[in-house]
């Protein structure tokens, strides 16, 4: 699963139109990568599609950074 981060990064770069080197584990989607609440919803949908998982709404609310997303995805992808 070592490529989870790279796959997440690719989606973030495409969806948020940001430079790849800004997409680090500690980066906050809203504070560092220019996302708004609608972008976050779309990002989570893209993660769900990419990894074929379902991220419940209450978990979505806790995904604030790239690292949060990677951690959650790793925990749910078997």
């Amino acid at each position: 699963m070592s490529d989870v981060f790279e796959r997440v990064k690719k989606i973030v770069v495409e969806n948020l139109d940001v430079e790849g080197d800004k997409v680090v584990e500690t980066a906050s989607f809203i504070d560092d990568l220019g996302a708004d609440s609608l972008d976050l919803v779309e990002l989570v949908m893209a993660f769900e599609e990419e990894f074929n998982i379902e991220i419940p709404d209450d978990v979505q609310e806790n995904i604030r950074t790239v690292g949060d997303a990677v951690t959650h995805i790793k925990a749910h992808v078997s």
Partner: protein
Amino acid sequence: MRRVVITGIGIVSPLANGTEATWERLIAGKSGAGPIDLFDTKDVPCKIAFQVPWNDGRGGGADDPHAFDPDKAASSKERRRIDEFILYALAAADECVEDSGWKPETDHDKERTGVLIGSGIGGLQSIYDTAITLHTQGARRVSPFFIPSALINLASGQVSIRHGFKGPNHSVVTACATGAHAIGDSARLIKYGDADVMLAGGAEAVICEIGIAGFCAAKAMSTNFNDTPEKASRPYDKDRDGFVMGEGAAVVMLEEYEHAKARGAKIYAEVAGYGLTGDAYHITAPAEGSEGGYRAMKMALGHSGLDVADIDYVNTHGTSTPKGDEGEVGAVERLFGDHAKNLSLSSTKSAVGHLLGAAGAIESAFCALAIRDQVMPPTLNLDNPSVDTPIDLIPHKAKKGKVRAAMSNSFGFGGTNACLILKQAD
């Protein structure tokens, strides 16, 4: 009474991206028609349209120096949040703001500047795409950007966000009269004192399968000229058989006269009169003898304080449909009476197609440019007129001549009519 003038124009049209390139090609007698390349047309009887030329080759824009560049209009991130009618509105608004030189920086100036851009149909392609997603993948896959990409007033919303215009933010939805109503209503907002400056116009982008199929089902579209697209839009010609769809956006900067003078703005024309009526007759067919259109023209004339003899040019609604064209010419003749023989009239839908919600805006812009340059655009493909009239229908070639005042007519489904009169500003 506060006077309202036009101090900026922005156009994205099937002829070109940009006001001057569009106008130059219009006066040169060029047509923006071609085969539809946005979807497979095998199942629809109308296979042609007036598409905006894009720099990726779409709509015949491959080698066109005036092709539309989507990257200049909005970033790829922005574009995912907006339907194409909003993309066109943003591009036209950018050009219009630049052209007008009005870039408010103080809170007061921003709050005195509003936006009123309408659309006839709005984000139809987005609605279509999302319906497919919903059907095949379920509700959880519906994008959070679906609604704000498709809502008609989001053209005004997006433009206001980009430029910081905090005055009235409004929209109009009156089918093919949208653009004219947007300009007329905006002028009233300025006259009433709610704003000093209004960015007003219309945008449309529904050359998609569901849009074409819908208008074809209503028997409104041309189907006899699929092999010769440039011949299809032929208002007042005996062989016309329906309208041909266009797309794009046009916006004008409307400004209170003293406000414009004080900052030394370039003035194209004054918005002298505006009239609006309803047919109360039929959902798609115009009333007999364009009775509602006649009353809209008469109302606009009354507000303008002009005499019919002061008006030199009429840009008609003239969609190239068998039912509409002759009734409108008859109504113009009735209004102008003995002056009809001195009048010139053309339908620029022969060159740019029917831009639906943007039609009234682009055609009003053409009237402003006709007043600026003292030249009137032609009615293309008018080989055998179906009407016997003393009015010069300006067949084939543009006509030089004095244009002191010009009238623009727009009539829409539902029986809604709007008429604008522009005149030289002294």
